Each structure stands twice: as C-alpha cells, then as structure tokens.
C-alpha cells in the first residue's frame, strides 16, 4: 500500500521482489503496441514469479512473455492481441493446449470491474455482453457476473460484474515524481482505474520529474502518489512498444518476438535466454537490441508525428 508521501524510487529488481510475490493477481497496463510495461514484465520473468493471474484489458507481448515463460495460471481480459502483428502467440497456444485458464470479458466489462474496485464497490452493472456467449454459464468466468433485472424497470436485464482489485499492477508511464505522482500522456486505456483499484502499484517511467512540475499543472496528474508504491526510472521501459512523445514501437523487434512466439519450443527458449535470463537488467537487454542510431530513428519517427 503506497499511501504515504515518501520517496519511492527503487530499481525494477527491488520493486518486483518486494511487491510481486508468486501467486499474485497482477494487473498490467499498456495496450498492444503502446506503452506496455515491458521492463517490469522482463523482471518478473527473470525473478521467476509463478502462478500469476494476469488481469487487464487489451493484453499484449508483456503478458505473452510471462505466459511463454510458464509463469501464468490464468488470464482475465478482453483480448490477447498485437493487432497487425498477429495474436499473442504463446497465450494462444497455451489456451489451445489446455495449459492456461482464460476468462473472457469485453474491454468495457474489464474496465468497469476495475472502476468498481477503484470506488470500493463490490460490483457494478453493465448492459454489455447480454445475449452473447461472454455470459454463458458454461464457462469459467461465470463466478464473476450474474444477470438480474434493473430494480426500477420491467424487463430490463443488467449484468452485475464483480469488482476486481488486483494485488499489484504494473504500468509504464512517461513521467513520475519520486513520490509516485504519475503523468501518462496519450491514451490511458484502463490503467487509471486499474491502478486505483490495486493493493500495490509499480510504475516505471521515462523521466523522473521534480514535484514542482507536478504542482505547477496538477490537471496533468494521471495517478496521485496515494496509489503508488514504487517508482522505477527506466528509459525505454516500454520498448519495443511505443511511448507517446518519446519513441515509436520497433516494428523489427516486435516482428522478431512474434516470429519466435509463433514458433515456440527451442527458438522461443533461446529468445528468453538471450534477452531476459541472460541479462542482469532491462538496460542490458536494451544494449543488445538497440544501438544509438536505431534509438535515434525511433525517437525521430515519434517527433515527426508530433
């Protein structure tokens, strides 16, 4: 619980060790090719945290890495997807092989579950998912919803969704101060509600900014320090996904990951060995995959879009 106004800067290694025990319900931020919490996902894999239940909305390669490393017993989400780059292949195969329990919801349903959690509500109604197999009693998500009638209208069914309070969430943001006041730029997807619903939150950021900057324009604060337990300075912490205003996604490295994830087996193991187990930290991985000129071109491409 990060409720205190104290300095919370630490390494990814320390943060994962302290806040993500095996068996955690782990909320993950970002979406497909944007601002995924890659540095923390790598650290979770490196520390071999097991039996994780991963929850989120649109889950991408950060989730796929943890599934591929055999650390995940269940996911609850709206999609596993890297869009133009294909499905999240380790996740897909694990489900097809019956090795991973999966609970499907719509994206809004997941965001509502986090919203309920963030408000201290036990459940929340929605009109989504009615009439579809997402609310079939035959499937394992059925302990997370019930259908009832709107008490104020006749014949107006609603789906009550159980609130979701992750044990810990991981988010990569553009900026934070050392107390954990976080600024997210660009889309914010489900991350704010998820963070506010979580018992602990670890934030990596591209820059640690002075608290005076936070106080000079408080309307830009996405997540106040009250919810945050650890702040990790990690430049390129969303790589190979894009971080708005900082760098675009690296098409080549995402394609490389997708290739080995599709293949699985030895090829995939080699990827994990080379880029995660064989690296002491995320910076060492970055030094293997990004030289100065490739960094500059990803930065330049983002600048051209702004």
């Amino acid at each position: 619980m990060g409720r205190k106004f104290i300095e919370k800067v630490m390494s990814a290694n320390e943060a994962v060790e302290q806040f993500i025990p095996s068996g955690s319900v782990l909320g993950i931020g970002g979406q497909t090719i944007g601002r995924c919490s890659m540095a923390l996902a790598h650290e979770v894999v490196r520390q071999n945290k097991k039996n994780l239940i991963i929850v989120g909305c649109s889950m991408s390669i950060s989730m796929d890495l943890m599934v591929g490393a055999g650390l995940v017993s269940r996911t609850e989400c709206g999609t596993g997807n890297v869009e133009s780059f294909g499905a999240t292949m380790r996740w897909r195969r694990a489900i097809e092989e019956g090795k991973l329990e999966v609970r499907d919801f719509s994206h809004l349903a997941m965001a509502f579950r986090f919203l309920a959690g963030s408000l201290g509500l036990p459940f929340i109604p929605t009109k989504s998912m009615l009439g579809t197999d997402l609310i079939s009693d035959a499937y394992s998500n059925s302990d997370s919803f019930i259908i009832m009638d709107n008490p104020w209208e006749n014949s107006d069914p609603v789906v009550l969704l159980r609130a979701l309070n992750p044990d810990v969430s991981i988010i990569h943001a553009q900026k934070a101060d050392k107390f954990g006041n976080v600024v997210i730029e660009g889309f914010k997807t489900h991350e704010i509600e998820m963070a506010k619903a979580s018992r602990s939150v670890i934030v990596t950021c591209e820059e640690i900014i002075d608290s005076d900057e936070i106080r000079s324009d408080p309307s830009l604060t996405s997540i106040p320090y009250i919810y945050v337990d650890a702040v990790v300075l990690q430049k390129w912490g969303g790589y190979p996904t894009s971080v708005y205003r900082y760098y675009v996604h690296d098409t080549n490295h995402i394609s490389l990951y997708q290739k080995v994830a599709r293949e699985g087996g030895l090829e995939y193991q080699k990827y994990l060995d080379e880029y995660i187990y064989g690296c002491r930290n995320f910076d060492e991985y970055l030094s293997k995959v990004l030289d100065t000129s490739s960094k500059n071109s990803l930065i330049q491409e983002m600048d051209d879009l702004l």
Partner: protein
Amino acid sequence: MTDKAHDNLMVIEAARYISDGDVVLVGTGLPMVASLFAQKNHAPNMCYVVESGLIGPEVIPTPVSVSDPRVMNKAINHGTLISALGEILHRGLADVGFISGAQIDQFANVNSTVIGDYNNPKVRLPGSGGANDIATHSRRILIIARHEKRRFPERCDYITSPGYIDGPDGRKKAGLRVYDPDINVITDQCVFEIDKKTGKLFLAKIMPGVTIEDVKNNTGFEIIVLNNGPEIVLQPTQNEISLLNNQIDPTGVYLKH
C-alpha cells in the same frame, strides 16, 4: 475486376456508410482503414473514437494498431477506455460501430473468440476486445470482412458480439437497448443487410463482376435475395482509388497490393 480491385472497393464501399458528422466507434483492422478513408474522403467532421480513449483524432496514415501514436494526432481528448467505450458508447452516443471478425453468421452475430469448442478450442482467437461493446451499444453497426465460406457459417461457434442473436426479437429478448439497429456486412464480394422482419442478413448489393451464384458458393448460410435482387456496388472513382492506394495504405498494411 481483380481481387485487388474488389479488396479496395470493399473498403471504399464500407466507408460510404459513414456520414460526415457521425460519431464512429472504430475497431481494429479493416475498420481502422475504412474509417480513415471516410475521414479523408468525405467525412472530415466524423468523430473517430477508439477504445483506448482517443477521441476525435485526425488520424495519420497508416496506423497499425488502435494504440498507434498516429491515432493520437490532433485528437480533442486523450482519455481512458471508459471515456470512449463507457461515456460515449455505453452512454448511447455512438452513431456507428465498426468491427470485423473471424466468423459472421446469418443473424450478423460475430465471433472473434474461438474456432471450435470454447473449452477445447481448435483455434483460439484474440477475444472480444471492445467489439462486444461496440455491437451492443452502437445505433448502426458495420461489419467488414473478406469473403470466405468458413467465415460465414450458419451459426458462429461462439457469439462474441451480438447481431440479431436468433431472430427479429433476439436483441430485445436479451435486453439490449439498441434492439433494432441497421446492420451492414461489407465483404469483397457483396454487401449484406439485416432484414428487420426476420433478423437475418439478405444480399443487398454485389460487387461488379460477382454473381449471386458466386456469393452462394462462398457463403455457409442461405443467401436471401429480396424483391428486385441485389444492387451493384457503385464503382470507385479514380480519386478514391488513388487516395486509398497512395495515401491511406500505400504499403499494403491492410489491403492487397
């Protein structure tokens, strides 16, 4: 017409169902490119909304994802998933919802979750994402997909996103507030439309050079032809083709090249 020409016309025709000023909830894949085409071609004042929370951007071609920074350009708001799918869509303010899917059945239900049995899948697909929300709450629904027999079965293996579910009153019985939306399914062979009397898709238009027989041979459900039969999809103009191939998707991220 060549396959490539049909592929292009599928996107152009789908875009014609978006009017200037529409608030459009845009799903990933072909809906992104067709909505972008509409924005640049004839609907500069449409409000492009994507689930990650981006509202009203002037999208830069060619985004590869709904979280691509190209979809953030000159937006009026960089919000949250709840701002987009909650406060606009669930609230009832989306004129058009635009999705794709792996299977589309005769009631316009869409499957993007699984091929085969959910608990013992043959192929696991990405899942709903925002598609269920979009098909549930939009006032009009557009579905775009390339035509293949296995893509158009009589009944989806799994209903991820509701069409008319099982008949004309399917949505009403399930409790959906938008109980009789217009639904159009645009493919590279034809356009299906919902007949609200039966809740089933009928063949509203066919692409130039495609016959009703072709569509029958490539569709798993019964092809229904009403009254005078299908219209022919309007040929694209040279400007439309050039906009699509030179500006919207010049490298073939989404379209056949």
